[in-house]
C-alpha cells in the first residue's frame, strides 16, 4: 500500500513538464507536442480586436495561429466552442504570490536601534533593492487556483517589505510546470513604497517625510556610487543601479501618497507606476497630472450598519461617502484618460474580484477598458508583448467563458495557462438551471435549479411550501432524496434531451420502485419582466454623491473665486502705523488690497456693509501642526533633510476650523523630537485647494530646531541617542555646522562631492538663506543657541515657545531674534516652571518682535483671544497686542511683504469680525484669502444643513443595502489625533 502511494506521488510529479535536456529515469522519453484547436469561438485577441466565429490554434504553450480561416493541422485536438468566448487570461502586476512576507523582527529590546543591521549594504535597512525573491519563491498551488478561477494567467510578484523592495518575478500561474517554465522573467520590475521594512528595527525613517527624504538621498548616493566615488562596496546601491532600467512600481496607501511618490520620482526623472488605493477620484485632476500609469485595487468597503441611530451618527460623512463614491473610481479614472491596470491586491479574497468589478461596471466603468486594464495595459506596463493578448506567438493564456466575462451570469469554463488546461467549470456539464415540474407517485413538485456547472443546486416545493430534500447533479445524473411525513423517497434520473427533460426511477420508503419525470416550465413573461424592471430600478438608484474639496463635511463643491469686494464703513485695524481707521472702506480686487479710504466706489463689486464691524488682516500663526500627515521625524538627532512641504494634508478639518477663527496663514512646523528638526511648510489656509496650491509661491525657507527636555529624551526611560543633556545639544549643533562649513568648502572647491541634502540645508542656514525657528524654553539654552549662531556668523530668526525669553530679552534684542510665544501656557513640564504670561510684554518692551502662536489645533482658531491676553498680562496696548498675531508673525516668517497688515498692494487676506477683534465676544463672519471668501458664517450654516441631509440620504441607502441582504460593517468613528510638538506617532494619512 505504501509503495503504491509512493508510486502515485512519483507519477504526479512526472506530470510536471521537465526540461527537455534533463535525463529521464522513469520511463521512455516522451514529448508532448499536441496542437489544440478551438473552433467557432468569439476570440478577443485584444480588447479591441475581436474575431467572431474564429479558430485559435495553440502548441507548445504558444498561440500558433488565430483567425477566421485557420487551417487545422492533422492530429490536432479540436474543441468546438460554439457560442462561447475566448479572452486572454488576466494579468496582475502587483502581487505577493508565492512570496511569504517576512516576520516582524522579534527583538524585545526597547532600546531604539539607530544603525543598520546589514553589513555591506546601504546605511539604512529599509533600503533593500538587492532583494531578489527568486530564492524565497514557492509556487502556491492553493492561491494559484483561486487566481486561475478568477481568470488570471500571469502575476508579477515581489517581496512586499521595505521602502525599496527589490525586483519582482513575472510568473505564469501554471500548476503543471516547474519554475523553469513558469517564471517568465526573474527581474520584471523594481518595487518601492513608503513603508518601513519589518525585518529591522532601525528607527529611521519613522515618518512619511523621512521616507521621502531617504529616497532622495538614496538616489543621490546611487549616482555618486555609479560614478565610482565611494571607497566601499555597497551591494544595495549596486543593485539599485542595476535595476534602474526596470519599470519602477511604487505602492501608496492613499491619493495624497500617490502624489507624494510622483513628486519624488519627478525630481530624479523617474516616472513611477503607482499602485493606488481606490480613492483617486477625490483628486482626479492631480492624479491625471502625474502622467503616471496606475495599478488600482478594487477593494470596496461594505456599507455601515446604521440601524442603531446613536452609533450611526458617530460615522463621519467622509467615511460614509467613501462607500457611496468608491465604486465609481474606475469609471472616473477611465473617463479622465488615466492609464491603469487592475490588481487583486488589498482584496481579502480573490473571490470578490469579479463581484467588485461588476459593481464598478454598474457604476459606469466601460467593459472594454476593464478588459484592457486586466490584459493589454498590465502587459504594456510590465513591458511584455507576449502576454495579455492572443496574437500569434503570445503565450497560450486564455479563458473560455459562456458569455461576456464581466456579466455576473457568465460561467468561466476554463483558464488555459501556457497551453495547459485548467478547468474552472466543466463545459460538458449541462446547464440545467430553470424551474421544472417533477412528477412522482402522482404528485407534482416544483423544482428550481440554480447555480453554475457542478455547483448547480435544486430546491423543491409543493404548492409553494418548501419540501425537505437533498439534490445533487453529477455527470448528467440528477439524484434527489425527499424527506416527507410519509417517509423518504429516493430519486435517480438522467437529463435526456436539450430541453433538459429528466427521467428516472424513484424508490419510496418501502423500497417500491416507480418512475419519475421532470419537464421544464416555460418562464412566465410577467415574472421575467418584473425581474428585469427590478434590475433597471436598481441601476437608477446608483446615485453617486458629488465629490467635495476636500471630500468631507464642510468641503467645497466649487472652489471660491476671487471677486471684487468692497467693504464699506468698517473699523479697519491696519497693523501698520496708521493704526485703527474708523468708518473706512476697503476695496479688494484681483486678490489684492486695492484701495483703503472713504466713500470708495467700485463697479461690479460685492458690497459688504461693515457698519459696527471690524476688519483686520488675517491672523498668521507662527507655530502650527495642523494640515500635515506627519510632524516628527525623530529617527535621528538631525532630520534637516525632511520637509513638511512633502506631507501637507489638505483634508484636515482643522484648516476649516482655523479659518472660522480668522487664521489665514500658518507655518506648519516639524516637531521637537530632535535638535535639528525638519523644514517647514508655510501655507495659506485655502480650504479645498490641494497641498501645492496652499503653499506660498517662493516660500521663505524655514527649519525647526529644538532644545531642552524633548530633544534630550527626558521623558523616555531608555533614551540612548546623543544628546542627552543641554551640554550635548550645544556640541551637536557645533558639530553639524562645522561639517556643513567643510561641505560647502568642498563644494566650492570644484572637487567632486557626495550630495547630502541634510548638509545642503545647513549650508543654507549658514548663508542666511534658510531661517531657524527654534523650540526653546529656558534661558541657558536660548543664550547658547545665539552664541553658537554668532560663532558661525548667522542669526537665529525666531525662538518659538521661548517661555523664558523674558529672562534674556535684552540679549535677544541684541542678537536680533524674534520671539513667538504662548500667551499663558506653563507648568506642563519642568522646563516651563518659570514660564509667565507676561513674557510677551517684557520681550516686546525690550525691543523683540513678538508673536503669539498656537502649537495647538484648537488654539489656532482663536488666536485673537490669545493676543488679547497680552493686554491683560503686562499691559500691552491694543494696537501692539493685535500685531502679535498679524504683522509680527508675518515679519518673523518673512511674508510681511504679502500679508500681516491691511496695506494697499498686499494680498487680500482679511477677516471681518462682528466685534472688536480681541473681544471675547467677537466672531469671524468672513475670512478672505487672496480675495476669495473661504469662510462665511452664512455659508457655514448652509453647509451644516447639507451635511445632515446628505448623511440622512446615505443612511437610507445603507439601510436599504442591509435590508436587501448586503454585507455591512460596524460603525466606526474617526479617531483623529491633533498634533502638537511632542506628537511622535504618525497618522496613516
Amino acid at each position, binding site marked *: 500500500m505504501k509503495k503504491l502511494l509512493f508510486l502515485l506521488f512519483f507519477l504526479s510529479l512526472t506530470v510536471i513538464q521537465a526540461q527537455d535536456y534533463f535525463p529521464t529515469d522513469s520511463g521512455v522519453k516522451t514529448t508532448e507536442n499536441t496542437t489544440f484547436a478551438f473552433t467557432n469561438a468569439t476570440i478577443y485577441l485584444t480588447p479591441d480586436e475581436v474575431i467572431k466565429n474564429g479558430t485559435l490554434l495553440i502548441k507548445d504553450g504558444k498561440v500558433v495561429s488565430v483567425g477566421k480561416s485557420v487551417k487545422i493541422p492533422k492530429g490536432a485536438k479540436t474543441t468546438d466552442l460554439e457560442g462561447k468566448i475566448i479572452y486572454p487570461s488576466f494579468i496582475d502586476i502587483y502581487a505577493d504570490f508565492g512570496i511569504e512576507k517576512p516576520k516582524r523582527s522579534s527583538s524585545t529590546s526597547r532600546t531604539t536601534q539607530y544603525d543598520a543591521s546589514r553589513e555591506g549594504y546601504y546605511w539604512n535597512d529599509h533600503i533593500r533593492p538587492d532583494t531578489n525573491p527568486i530564492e524565497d519563491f514557492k509556487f502556491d498551488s492553493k492561491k494559484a487556483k483561486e487566481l486561475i478561477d478568477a481568470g488570471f494567467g500571469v502575476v508579477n510578484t515581489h517581496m512586499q517589505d521595505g521602502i525599496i523592495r527589490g525586483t519582482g518575478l513575472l510568473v505564469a500561474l501554471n500548476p503543471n510546470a516547474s519554475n523553469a517554465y513558469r517564471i517568465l522573467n526573474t527581474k520584471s520590475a523594481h518595487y518601492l513604497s513608503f513603508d518601513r521594512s519589518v525585518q529591522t528595527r532601525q528607527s529611521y525613517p519613522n515618518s512619511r517625510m523621512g521616507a521621502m527624504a531617504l529616497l532622495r538621498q538614496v538616489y543621490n548616493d546611487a549616482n555618486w556610487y555609479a560614478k565610482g566615488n565611494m571607497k566601499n562596496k555597497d551591494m544595495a546601491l549596486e543593485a539599485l543601479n542595476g535595476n534602474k532600467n526596470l519599470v519602477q512600481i511604487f505602492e501608496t496607501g492613499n491619493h495624497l501618497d500617490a502624489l507624494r511618490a510622483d513628486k519624488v520620482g519627478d525630481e530624479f526623472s523617474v516616472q513611477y507606476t503607482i499602485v493606488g488605493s481606490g480613492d483617486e477620484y477625490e483628486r482626479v485632476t492631480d492624479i491625471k497630472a502625474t502622467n503616471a500609469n496606475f495599478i488600482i485595487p478594487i477593494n470596496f468597503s461594505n456599507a455601515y450598519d446604521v440601524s442603531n441611530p446613536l452609533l450611526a451618527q458617530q460615522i463621519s460623512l467622509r467615511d460614509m461617502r467613501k462607500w457611496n463614491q468608491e465604486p465609481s473610481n474606475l469609471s472616473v479614472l477611465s473617463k479622465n484618460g488615466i492609464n491603469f491596470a487592475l490588481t487583486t491586491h488589498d482584496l481579502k479574497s480573490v473571490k470578490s474580484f469579479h463581484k467588485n468589478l461588476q459593481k464598478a461596471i454598474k457604476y459606469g466603468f466601460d467593459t472594454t477598458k476593464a478588459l484592457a486594464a486586466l490584459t493589454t495595459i498590465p502587459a504594456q506596463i510590465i513591458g511584455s508583448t507576449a502576454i495579455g493578448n492572443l496574437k500569434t506567438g503570445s503565450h497560450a493564456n486564455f479563458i473560455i467563458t459562456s458569455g461576456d466575462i464581466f456579466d455576473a451570469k457568465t460561467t468561466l469554463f476554463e483558464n488555459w495557462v501556457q497551453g495547459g488546461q485548467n478547468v474552472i467549470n466543466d463545459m460538458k456539464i449541462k446547464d440545467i438551471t430553470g424551474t421544472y415540474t417533477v412528477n412522482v407517485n402522482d404528485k407534482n413538485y416544483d423544482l428550481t435549479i440554480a447555480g453554475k456547472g457542478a455547483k448547480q443546486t435544486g430546491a423543491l416545493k409543493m404548492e409553494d411550501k418548501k419540501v425537505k430534500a437533498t439534490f445533487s447533479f453529477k455527470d448528467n445524473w440528477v439524484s434527489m432524496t425527499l424527506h416527507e411525513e410519509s417517509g423518504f423517497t429516493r430519486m435517480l434520473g438522467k437529463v435526456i434531451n436539450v430541453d433538459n427533460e429528466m427521467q428516472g426511477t424513484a424508490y419510496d420508503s418501502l423500497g417500491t420502485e416507480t418512475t419519475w419525470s421532470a419537464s421544464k416550465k416555460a418562464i412566465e413573461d410577467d415574472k421575467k419582466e418584473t425581474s428585469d424592471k427590478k434590475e433597471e430600478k436598481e441601476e437608477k438608484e446608483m446615485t453617486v454623491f458629488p465629490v467635495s474639496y476636500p471630500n468631507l463635511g464642510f468641503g467645497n463643491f466649487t472652489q471660491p473665486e476671487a471677486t471684487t469686494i468692497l467693504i464699506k464703513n468698517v473699523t479697519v485695524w491696519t497693523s501698520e502705523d496708521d493704526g485703527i481707521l474708523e468708518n473706512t472702506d476697503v476695496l479688494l480686487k484681483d486678490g489684492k488690497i486695492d484701495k483703503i479710504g472713504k466713500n470708495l466706489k467700485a463697479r461690479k463689486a460685492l458690497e459688504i456693509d461693515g457698519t459696527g464691524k471690524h476688519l483686520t488682516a488675517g491672523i498668521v500663526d507662527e507655530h502650527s501642526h495642523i494640515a500635515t500627515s506627519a510632524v516628527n521625524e525623530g529617527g535621528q538627532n538631525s532630520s534637516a533633510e525632511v520637509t513638511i512641504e512633502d506631507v501637507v494634508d489638505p483634508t484636515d478639518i482643522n484648516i476649516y476650523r482655523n479659518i472660522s477663527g480668522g487664521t489665514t496663514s500658518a507655518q506648519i512646523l516639524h516637531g521637537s523630537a530632535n535638535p535639528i528638526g525638519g523644514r517647514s511648510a508655510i501655507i495659506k489656509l485655502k480650504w479645498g485647494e490641494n497641498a501645492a496650491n496652499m503653499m506660498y509661491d517662493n516660500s521663505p525657507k524655514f527649519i525647526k530646531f529644538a532644545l531642552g527636555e524633548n530633544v534630550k529624551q527626558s521623558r523616555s526611560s531608555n533614551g540612548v541617542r546623543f544628546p542627552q543633556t543641554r551640554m550635548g545639544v550645544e556640541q551637536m549643533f557645533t558639530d553639524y555646522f562645522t561639517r556643513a562649513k567643510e561641505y560647502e568648502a568642498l563644494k566650492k572647491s570644484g572637487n567632486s562631492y557626495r550630495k547630502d541634502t541634510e548638509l545642503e540645508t545647513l549650508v543654507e542656514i549658514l548663508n542666511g538663506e534658510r531661517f531657524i525657528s527654534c523650540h526653546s524654553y529656558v534661558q541657558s539654552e536660548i543664550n547658547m543657541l545665539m552664541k553658537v549662531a554668532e560663532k558661525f556668523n548667522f542669526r537665529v530668526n525666531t525662538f518659538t515657545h521661548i517661555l523664558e525669553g523674558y529672562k534674556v530679552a535684552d540679549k535677544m534684542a541684541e542678537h536680533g531674534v524674534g520671539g513667538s510665544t504662548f500667551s499663558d501656557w506653563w507648568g506642563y513640564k519642568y522646563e516651563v516652571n518659570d514660564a509667565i504670561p507676561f513674557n510677551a510684554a517684557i520681550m516686546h518692551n525690550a525691543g523683540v518682535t513678538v508673536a503669539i502662536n498656537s502649537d495647538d489645533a484648537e488654539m489656532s482658531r482663536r488666536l485673537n483671544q490669545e493676543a488679547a491676553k497680552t493686554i491683560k498680562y503686562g499691559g500691552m496696548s491694543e494696537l501692539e497686542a493685535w500685531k502679535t498675531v498679524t504683522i509680527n508673525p508675518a515679519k518673523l516668517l518673512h511674508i510681511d511683504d504679502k500679508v500681516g497688515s491691511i496695506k494697499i498692494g498686499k494680498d487680500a487676506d482679511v477677516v471681518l469680525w462682528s466685534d472688536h477683534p480681541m473681544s471675547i*465676544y467677537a466672531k469671524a463672519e468672513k475670512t478672505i484669502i487672496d480675495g476669495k471668501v473661504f469662510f462665511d458664517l452664512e455659508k457655514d450654516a448652509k453647509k451644516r444643513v447639507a451635511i445632515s441631509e446628505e448623511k440622512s440620504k446615505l443612511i437610507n441607502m445603507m439601510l436599504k443595502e442591509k435590508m436587501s441582504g448586503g454585507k455591512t460593517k460596524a460603525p466606526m468613528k474617526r479617531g483623529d489625533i491633533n498634533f502638537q510638538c511632542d506628537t511622535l506617532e504618525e497618522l496613516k494619512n
Partner: protein
Amino acid sequence: MKNILYSLLFFFCIGNSIAQQTPANKQSTAVSIEGATAHLGNGQVIKNSLIMFADGKITFVGSAMAKIARQGTVIKAEGKHVYPGFIAANASLGLVEIDAVKASADLDEIGINNPHIRSLIAYNAESKVVESMRPNGVLMAQITPRGGTISGTSSIVQLDAWNWEDAAVKIDDAIHMNWPGSFARGRWWLGEDPGLKVDVKYGENIEKIKSYFTDAKNYLASNKEKKHLPYEATKGLFNGSQKLFIHVTGQREITDAITIAKEVGIDNLVIVRGDGADKVADLLVKHNIPVILNRPHRNSDNEDDAYDYTYTIAKILTDKGVLVSIGMEGQMERMNTRNLPFYAGTFAAHGLDKEVALQLLTSNTAKILGIDDMVGSLEVGKHATLFISEGDALDMRGNLLTKAYIQGRDISLETHQTELYKRYSDKYKTK
C-alpha cells in the same frame, strides 16, 4: 542688630520669591465697595452698587444710592465691576504641580473602583498653580481625583489657605466616576485602524458598574461583619448626602448612566463633560440633573460637528432648562483653570446672555456642588468671597483684578509669576 535686620530682610526677599503668597488674615475690618457695577451671579446686575461685608460675610447688597452707613474701609470703585468669586467645578488643582514630573503628581490612584480615595488630603494649598488662579478671579475649586471607573471623592476648597484643612469649604462633597464609552480605539500599534470602533464590551462594562453599586448597597444593608472601606465610602450616595458625578459623553452613554444610577438607587446625579447632553436634555430636565460641561476651548472630536459645537452647547442646554456649569478636565487642565472666566465669555459670545454665562461660574456651580447656601452669588449672609475687576471679567481685556476677598480676607493677587514679571521688568528698567 543691623545684621539681624539685614538678614531678616534678605530672608523675606528670598522667601517671597520662593514660597507661596502668605494667606491673608481673618477679616478684622468691615469693607464697603461703592460705585461699581455689581454682577450678583444670579443673573442680576446692580449698576452703581454698594456691597458691604464684615466678619467674612456679606452684610449688604444694594444700590449706592441707598442711604445707609458705609461700614469700615470704603473702596471707591466707580467704573469697576464686582463679581462673586468664580468656582471651578471638576478641577484638579493642587494634585499635580508639573504635569511631566511624575513625582509631583497625586492625581490618579491605581485600582478600578476607588470611592474611598479622597482628594482633599493631597491638595497642595501652596501650589504655585493654585495661586495663579486668583488674579483671574477663580477663588474656589472642586478638587477631583481622576482615573479608574470610580475615581474617588472630591472636596471643595477656597484658594487661599495654609493647608488643606483650612482650605476646605465642603469636605467629601461628591464621588466621581468615569462612564465607559461605547466606542473603543483600535490598537494602532498592533496594526489596527486607529479609528474608534464600537466596543463590544460596552454592555458588559456597564453591567459591572451596576453590580458594583448593587453589591455596595447590599453590603450597607448587611451587618457589615467585615468592614469594606470602598463600600463604606459609597454610603452618602444612597442616603442622599453625597452626589454622584458621572463623567460621561455621548447620548447613549448619558442615558445609560442615568438609567443605571436610578436603578441602583442613586438619585443625586450630576453629568460631567456632557457632550451629547444637548440631545437628551429632556431626560436631564425630567430628572433634574445638572451638567458640568467641559471647557469650550477644545475641538469637537467629530469632524462633521459645527466649528462652534463646543461653544454653543451651553446655550442649547440652558434654553432647554438644564442647569449648566463649566468644569476642567483633560490636557493642561490645572494651569488652564485660570482661563475659566474666558470659557464663560466664549459661551456668551455664542448665544448665552452675559449674566447667564456668569452664572455658569457662580450660582449654577454653587447649586450643583451643593454650596449655594454659602457662596455663588452676592447675597447677604453668604461668604464675602468676591473680587473687583477693572472691566468685564469674562473678557481678557477687562479681567484685571484690583482686589479679591475670600471669606472677607483681603488676599494677595501676587504670584510666583507676577514676582518674576516685576523682577525682570526692573532688570531692564535699571539697565
